[in-house]
């Protein structure tokens, strides 16, 4: 059976019109109006009760984040829309914005209103120039129609700044992103303090992923139960997945949480039987082999199999693919993208890449696997941020699969 492709977030994807008139004609901006009428506290309460968790990778409850900032002692607060999307195999935020820029922006405006933000920042990766322009244009329409009025404290119009990243994967990490907006090298900072306490310019800050923000308008408009009509008890709602690699129809797919991986692959036109494996969750994800293709795409479903949804990237590999060559590319990515601030990651990602190169070329001395394992432990334990901590995750899952005799090469 093929899963129903549940277009909730992407429901306007086929519409030709992307202007504000078309958006409001199809029910857009009623959620923002409702937020204004029920007030910030009630708005955040609905979000908390909805069970929405962040879609940027860490799966943190969105309502809790907003509530800490809403109730912060410091009256200067910010909201940041994380549009840095740079995880290899991930393009769902781009498709989300291309399909429905106003839905994402309405979520952002509701967030700003709910936490009384002084200013909103949209940090768009430098390579997404077209997306940044689309967002600027859509913001202009909202501004001209008066929808930014009354959102900032004191009923003032909300200032929104679109910022362009410089081409650095690490700037998707929230504290690195703040440094980048502030005009510095995008080097992550140790947490705590968390962004909700001391974020952008050391002020309480909400930072959310594009897909998280896109979920907000329906939740506010239709109530706290909105997500629960789809997905599972512990992972309510739908999820966007970027499917690429050896599939007939690479694309972004929206499915309810809990959909079996196999059905997602079939939606993308892959014959699950022909595949050797998929990499689930991006460069820091895990390899999943056909014996586990029944796994349920929900937070609890992947946890059960020691996998991760990560950024929602699904890269499929046929039986001809040498997965050690894939691992070499992942290793190269991390070595290039490490910000270099801490030694375990700066040196570790380079050593890891060198060993993966050897293994990909089939020239191993024999001790690479045990060295990789020790290295992965050091990087996981001693790195400052998520990049170094997870740079060996995929490699470790590949070694496990190799021991279990699952590789075709």
């Amino acid at each position, binding site marked *: 059976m093929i899963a129903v492709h549940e277009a909730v977030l992407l429901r306007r994807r086929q519409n030709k019109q992307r202007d504000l008139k078309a958006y409001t004609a199809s029910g857009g901006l009623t959620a923002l109006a409702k937020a204004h009428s029920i007030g910030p506290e009630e708005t955040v309460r609905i979000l908390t009760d909805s069970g929405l968790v962040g879609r940027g990778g860490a799966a943190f409850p969105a309502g809790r984040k907003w509530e800490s900032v809403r109730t912060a002692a410091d009256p200067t607060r910010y909201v940041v829309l994380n549009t840095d999307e740079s995880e*290899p195999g991930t393009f769902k935020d781009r498709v989300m914005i291309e399909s429905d820029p106003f839905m994402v922006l309405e979520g952002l405006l509701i967030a700003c209103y709910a936490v009384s933000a002084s200013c909103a920042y949209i940090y768009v990766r*430098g*390579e997404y120039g077209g997306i940044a322009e689309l967002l600027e244009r859509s913001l202009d329409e909202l501004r001209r129609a008066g929808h930014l009025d009354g959102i900032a404290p004191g009923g003032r119009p909300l200032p929104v700044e679109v910022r*362009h990243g410089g081409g650095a994967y690490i700037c998707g990490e929230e504290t690195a992103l703040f440094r980048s907006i502030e005009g510095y090298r995008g080097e992550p900072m140790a947490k705590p303090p968390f962004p909700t306490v001391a974020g952008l310019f050391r002020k309480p800050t909400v930072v959310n992923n594009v897909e998280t923000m896109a979920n907000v308008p329906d939740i506010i408009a239709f109530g706290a139960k909105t997500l629960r009509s789809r997905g599972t008890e512990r992972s309510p709602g739908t999820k966007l997945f*970027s499917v690429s*690699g050896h599939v007939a129809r*690479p694309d972004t797919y929206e499915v309810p949480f809990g959909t079996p991986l196999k059905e997602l692959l079939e939606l993308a036109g892959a014959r699950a039987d022909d595949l050797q494996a998929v990499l689930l969750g991006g460069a820091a994800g895990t390899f999943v082999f056909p014996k586990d293709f029944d796994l349920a795409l929900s937070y609890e479903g992947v946890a059960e199999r020691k996998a991760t949804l990560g950024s929602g990237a699904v890269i499929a590999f046929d039986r001809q693919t040498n997965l050690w060559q894939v691992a070499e*590319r992942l290793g190269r990515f991390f070595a290039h993208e490490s910000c270099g601030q801490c030694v375990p990651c700066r040196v570790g990602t380079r050593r890891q890449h060198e060993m993966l190169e050897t293994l990909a070329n089939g020239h191993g001395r024999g001790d690479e696997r045990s060295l990789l394992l020790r290295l992965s432990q050091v990087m996981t334990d001693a790195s400052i941020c998520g990049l170094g901590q997870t740079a060996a995750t995929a490699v470790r899952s590949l070694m496990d699969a190799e021991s279990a005799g699952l590789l075709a090469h």
Partner: protein
Amino acid sequence: MPEPDAAVMNRVRTLIDETGSERTQLLEVLHKVQAEFQHIPRAAAEAIEQAMNVPVADTYGVVTFYDLLTERPVGRSVLRICEDVPCCLHGSEELAREAEQRLGPEGQPSADGAVSWTRCACLGLCDRAPAALYEEKPLAPLHHQDIASIGDRRA
């Protein structure tokens, strides 16, 4: 002919006036300088020091951190070929080798300064692999023919 330092500094001062002279605007200013001069010339960093109060060394610290900013000139048009996994599965490495043959060494502009090419990390266009950006716009999937016609445009 490289532009005289005074002209560069004047132009950068104008860009800073348009963008804002607070430190938080540094990356936006640098993007504009890079677009205009294909790199961040020393004179630009000096203008930034005077107008934005960011030391030259600090500016280069930022420049070297970000892939889209460079210390040395790149081509007026840059071809970026993605080298990450989904694109690799669709032949990006062969395309990079083709680019090397037709357009010269990676990162080095042609004699007339028109074109350079470079490998890059995932562009978020994996559904259209093998992906590239040319003049900041998606060129995906990238074909051998695209590289040939880019090569024909340079001296």
